[in-house]
């Protein structure tokens, strides 16, 4: 299978994991090409004549450097794997600061809403992300979607100069698992019918909304060259290695 991987910085963990699996001779039987742009750079891509074409030079340069061409010729691939693209549990955590749905425990001082409203609200919001928009460009093709990894569990203690999304408050209240379940359900529901959501594997998840330390270890050193423990958002190659065995079966089942 010829697979096109499109994503933002979270694509790095997949690339590291892929390289490690290949080195061990354990990579799935796929020909993989990566196209990435940092942050929301993929927003500047348009569908034209069967190609995804960046409208900004720097994005085209990123594509060429990673994937070998400045654009993505859709017919060159049998399947597409979208990663990150602004789909994150942080959106629910922001919601959870002011609202809680019936059934959650941390409701004090919040507007209480019906679970169905929370589901509709979040589904609509996730559908409006770069993930939803990019998936809609790939109508009629096999599309698998993986959200941004949950942040590393050490973020519960907080970190200087890092936004506080309320991970610890949610977990301490006993709502981590329910929020994680709502995240998986609403992201899956937000995607167009031809796209399928690939949840972060259970083995990597801690407390429902964070990633186990092992998958973040050295991520900041490996990925950005910084010292360890400074980046809770990005994962290491071990995380990528957990993802890859799930990709081919999911695409074949579509």
């Amino acid at each position, binding site marked *: 299978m010829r697979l096109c991987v499109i994503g*933002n*910085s979270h*694509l*790095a*963990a997949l*690339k*590291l994991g892929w*390289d490690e699996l290949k080195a061990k001779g354990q990579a799935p039987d796929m020909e993989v090409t*990566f196209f*990435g*742009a*940092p*942050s929301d750079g993929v927003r500047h891509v348009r569908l034209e004549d069967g190609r995804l074409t960046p409208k900004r030079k720097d994005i085209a340069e*990123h594509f060429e*450097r*990673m994937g070998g061409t400045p654009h993505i010729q859709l017919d060159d691939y049998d399947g597409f794997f979208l990663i990150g693209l602004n789909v994150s549990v942080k959106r629910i955590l922001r*919601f959870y600061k*002011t*609202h809680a749905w*019936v*059934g959650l425990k941390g*409701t004090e001082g919040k*507007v*209480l*809403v*019906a*679970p*169905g*409203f929370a589901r*509709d*609200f979040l589904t*609509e*919001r996730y559908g409006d992300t770069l993930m939803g928009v990019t998936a809609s460009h790939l109508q009629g093709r096999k599309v698998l979607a993986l959200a941004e990894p949950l942040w590393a569990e050490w973020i519960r203690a907080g970190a*200087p*100069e*890092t*936004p506080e999304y309320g991970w610890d408050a949610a977990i301490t209240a006993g709502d981590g698992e329910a929020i994680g379940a709502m995240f998986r359900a609403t992201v899956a529901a937000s995607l167009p019918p031809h796209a399928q959501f690939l949840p972060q594997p259970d083995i990597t998840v801690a407390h429902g909304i964070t990633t186990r330390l092992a998958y973040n270890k050295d991520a900041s050193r*490996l*990925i*950005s*060259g910084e010292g360890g423990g400074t*980046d809770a*958002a*990005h994962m290491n190659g071990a995380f990528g290695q957990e993802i890859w065995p799930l990709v081919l079966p999911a695409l074949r089942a579509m």
Partner: protein
Amino acid sequence: MEDEGAVTARVGVLGGDGAWSVAEVLRGAGVAVADLEPAPKQVAEAVARKWHYGLASVRAGLLGHPRAILQLLQQVNGARPKGWIWKGEGAVDGFRPEIDPEGLPREGIEGYRLAHLAAVARLVQEVDRLILPLCTARAWVDGAGTVFGARPKGVTLPSGVKISEIVFSADDLRSDLHAMVEVFRALNPRLVLQVSVLPSLGEVVDWPEVEGLQHDPIFDALLEARRKGGKGAGLLAFLAQGGDIDRFAPVVAAPVAEDDDAERRRRRKEKRKAKGDNPGKVICEDELLEAFAK
């Protein structure tokens, strides 16, 4: 010098969330109608409307009947009538069955109602003027005289509860309106109450006049006119906030809430831009490129 025509009252709307929303019409006219059970700011309009957010100051449903409003206040004061947890696809609040298009978990519905009652209590304390849309003398009533909402299709009542639709007499309506005013006064003596009589929400009723309740036919006519796209936004907003019509001087209408939101977003964006790089943010570009440099 203070503008004699300026009005600044905090305005709430209790009920009227039915065929059309009084609160929405007022917001469209520039009135900052209080919202004590707000949806998240980013909610799409269709989602908010489906779940009855923003259609009144609290998600109490249509109300529109003095007994329904009176009962709600009595519940704020601790009354707990029976027979209100109906069964559909999940539990349904029989006092406002139209509000949530899907049922709720049975074990959570009492807390959900208490949270609503707390919002009603805050509303009564936090606004200066409360507009009460009235639209019907009919109500679904059980044997104990408790008024419920209209039972949706597929929803069943608890065993032993029977409701029937009755038309309240003028005396009953007057009595309920009196009692309602008294409860409001006990909760917030400074609160100004204004009824809005809206046949287009229900039926024509000869509403009795009751001390302590204001009623302004011009306000009602302006509401109806604005609902149909007519003019008069400035005057409607002025009257909604308690302005005296003899002092009304047409001015440029206050910006509506949406404009304020857009302005706030623009300022936030400019602030972020001026601030430059946030040292705390993840440097995504570096991370992405480094992975491909290996």
